[in-house]
């Protein structure tokens, strides 16, 4: 009268294996679930009972206790529905004893016995090892992405029971459950003019340098930022799996994510939505969803300061750890941050003096984004509204494919030095992987003496210079040309102190 079946629950972007133990004994008919289920999980009780009855099976009029082990882990969500149903049926002997392979069950049940897809199938499948997975038809493709065991699907609970009895084969997975279509990101060719903007995008993509664009509304900041994922190389297998897990955890997409994602949360976005950790399930935030791709923060000055400041730690470490009283979770969050800002609050201003905003107003507006965050941007450029001639007559610019080729070549050069991206160079690595030629060394010295460059700024400039040198195919040493450009691509957002 006892059974134990395998399943999993989701916490953050990780799955945790859960054993569903069911005990059926004589006594007053009852159905209890113990083992720290939260509200959404406890609701399984009613769904499971209705699903079993709708499938033409009998519900045991006995005392049923379900335990979800380990009992110290909080279980959230509906992923255990199918496992509980199978556990009950097995405990009352409604299923054949001799099962040939170890199995795990991951699906939500409808009241009519339908198997429904669940969010987070990828990370949950990843922790269930060699067990054969039984999932809803829509989840078949995703479950097969990372798991090593066989994947079976069934449309209803009745089909599961039939298949277990050997009276019918497991149904075939529906065609097209693995999405192969890849959405093409918009092409860079549509950006006309904007020579410096295009250059900055190329450098950002080649070295994964965070990019800030300052310009009036309608100057094409967002347009350009949206084209950045198209310049990045496809995700490597590890990042691809990590990104897929995060997206699967929020039920955002299906299939393996190979194209760098672009996330652009609205500026009313809360800290938790940005960083993650919302519900008891520790839902991943926008930064985890942007892993491997681009996080576009449009109108940075309008974001809440606390949300922006929460980005500081993940920007440094490439991951985010969220700790709550009951649980903690860790997500990978290595992304390319692209910010856009207006130069002044009125929104008309471009050149200083071209609108009615005073210098003090402009400065106050820029200070809405804290200094440490501004400092994280290796590349900071001004963007202007395109001239009429640019919009009407100018030929299209280079297309994404051409630029992406140069980016890939530059990244190969960096990879030959054993570096994933130049923005990740440590200060020790900079010394021997990005040495300056003598003239460039003198220039850096002059900048430092004049107070135009801080020690931290120096490292950032040298990383960018390394990337520019890679794009230009320079040798080991970084030339004064590359350094000059790196310095000019780092516009001060705030007035320099002492002015």
């Amino acid at each position, binding site marked *: 009268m006892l059974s134990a079946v395998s399943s999993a629950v989701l916490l953050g972007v990780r799955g945790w294996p859960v054993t569903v133990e069911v005990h059926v004994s004589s006594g007053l008919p009852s159905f209890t679930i113990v083992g720290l289920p939260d509200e959404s999980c406890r609701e399984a009780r009613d769904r499971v009972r209705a699903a079993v009855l709708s499938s033409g099976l009998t519900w045991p009029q006995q005392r049923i206790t379900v335990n979800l082990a380990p009992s110290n882990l909080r279980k959230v969500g509906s992923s255990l529905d199918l496992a509980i149903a199978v556990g009950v049926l097995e405990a009352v002997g409604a299923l054949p004893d001799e099962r040939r392979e170890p199995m795990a069950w991951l699906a939500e049940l409808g009241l009519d016995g339908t198997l429904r897809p669940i969010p987070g199938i990828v990370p949950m499948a990843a922790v269930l090892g060699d067990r054969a997975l039984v999932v809803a038809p829509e989840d078949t493709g995703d479950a097969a992405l990372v798991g090593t065991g066989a994947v079976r699907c069934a449309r209803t609970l009745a089909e599961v029971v039939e298949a277990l009895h050997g009276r019918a084969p497991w149904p075939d997975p529906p065609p097209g459950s693995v999405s192969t279509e890849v959405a093409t990101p918009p092409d860079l060719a549509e950006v006309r003019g904007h020579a410096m903007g295009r250059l900055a995008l190329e450098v950002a993509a080649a070295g994964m340098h965070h990019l800030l664009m300052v310009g009036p509304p309608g100057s094409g900041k967002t347009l350009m930022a949206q084209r950045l994922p198209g310049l990045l190389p496809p995700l490597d297998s590890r990042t691809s799996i990590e990104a897929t897990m995060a997206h699967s955890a929020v039920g955002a997409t299906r299939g393996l994510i190979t194209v760098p994602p672009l996330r652009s949360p609205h500026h009313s976005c809360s800290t938790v939505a940005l960083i993650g950790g919302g519900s008891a399930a520790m839902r991943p935030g926008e930064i985890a969803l942007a892993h491997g791709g681009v996080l576009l923060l449009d109108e940075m000055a309008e974001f809440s300061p606390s949300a922006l400041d929460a980005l500081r730690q993940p920007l440094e470490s490439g991951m985010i750890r969220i700790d709550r009283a009951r649980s903690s979770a860790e997500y990978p969050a290595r992304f390319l941050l692209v910010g856009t800002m207006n130069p002044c609050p009125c929104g008309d201003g471009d050149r200083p003096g071209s609108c009615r905003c005073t210098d003090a107003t402009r400065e106050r507006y820029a200070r809405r984004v804290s200094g440490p965050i501004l400092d994280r941007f290796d590349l900071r450029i001004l963007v202007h509204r395109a001239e009429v001639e640019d919009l009407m007559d100018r030929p299209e610019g280079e297309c994404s494919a051409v630029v992406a080729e140069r980016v890939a070549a530059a990244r190969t050069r960096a990879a030959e030095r054993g570096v994933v991206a130049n923005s990740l160079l440590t200060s020790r690595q900079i010394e021997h992987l990005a040495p300056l030629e003598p003239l460039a060394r003198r220039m850096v010295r002059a900048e430092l003496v004049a107070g135009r460059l801080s020690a931290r700024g120096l490292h950032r400039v040298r990383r960018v210079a390394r990337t520019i040198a890679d794009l230009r195919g320079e040798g080991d040493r970084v030339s004064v040309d590359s350094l000059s450009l790196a310095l000019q691509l780092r516009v001060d957002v705030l007035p*320099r102190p002492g002015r």
Partner: protein
Amino acid sequence: MSTPIAFGRLDDSSRARAIALASCTLLQHTRLRDLLAQQSVDAAYDMIVSRSLPRPEAIFRSVKTPAGELLRQAAIELASIDLDEALERTMAIGDVVVIGEPHYPPTLLELEVPPAVLFHRGPLDALTNRTVTIVGTRRATALGRTIASDMALTVAAAGVSVVSGLAAGIDTAAHAGALEAGGTRPVAVVGTGLDVPYPRSSARVWAQVAADGLIMSQYPPGSQPLHWRFPERNRILAALGEICVVVESHVAGGSMITVRVADDLGRTICAVPGSVRSPASEGPNKLLVDGCTPVRDGDDVLTVLRLESMGQLPFDTRTRPDGLAADVLAQLGVQSHDLGSLVEAVECDPIALARTLGWLEAAGWITVDRGWFDLRARSR
């Protein structure tokens, strides 16, 4: 009103009384001038404190409060001011000159309401030079600041005292330029107490003007920057200069008050033409349309003053650029640019441009502020 009573230089006790009268909030501007037009400083002080002023309604004109009541309040306020302390505080900073004293600046008497008591730091003889008032907006463009600064440098080098208000923007740039020339004392008229540098961004230039030039205020030490004090200050600015130059101003700017007063006083008004699209040049452009004298630089101002350029500008030690650098300087002479707009304007490779800009900044030809490049004034 009647002319002020002429008297010799005041002794310390009278000066202390004058300072106390100027510090009394109920005795500002017209009231104080009217009072001192009829009475000597000592007599006026005594009459107020003892409330024995004949015909108080002639001084305390108010529709709200009866003159007797205002006199009573003024008496209380005046009596509460410690004369020794007030004198000490003023003399620690500078000096005070009262209308009617022989060294009171004569040009100020042309004003409808000349300041009755004037605090100053630095010798008043700076005003015996030829003078030019340079005014303009606080929200100046970098180009406007450069023009003001270079203009002040040229006229100061020719021995002309530059008068301005030490406000942010054009004023401070003009003073900085005048200080650079050395030799000729710049004159500043401010709207706060002489010990209250305002705005703080001008504090450095303020200190230099206080040290090397003349700085004046009709408000006693400790007076805070209040909005109504600045238009009063502008009248003094207008009166002190033989000519008044507007470098940049918005149509409704405070500089336009200075211009109106200067025009009423019969001073020549000059304006620096600017782009018709630039809001900061709306004021001078409108003045030009109305028929005032256009000036482009310090030499033009000297011509208006019927002076020759003295050719005593400090030697320019900067290496003269050529090639791309010269093209860049030519573009920046027209308007501010950033890297992106310069690439378009001079049609060159971003790398070459970046190198050139780095060199130009290091050599002192250009300045960069928040991504915008501008020509650097010679005087900074």
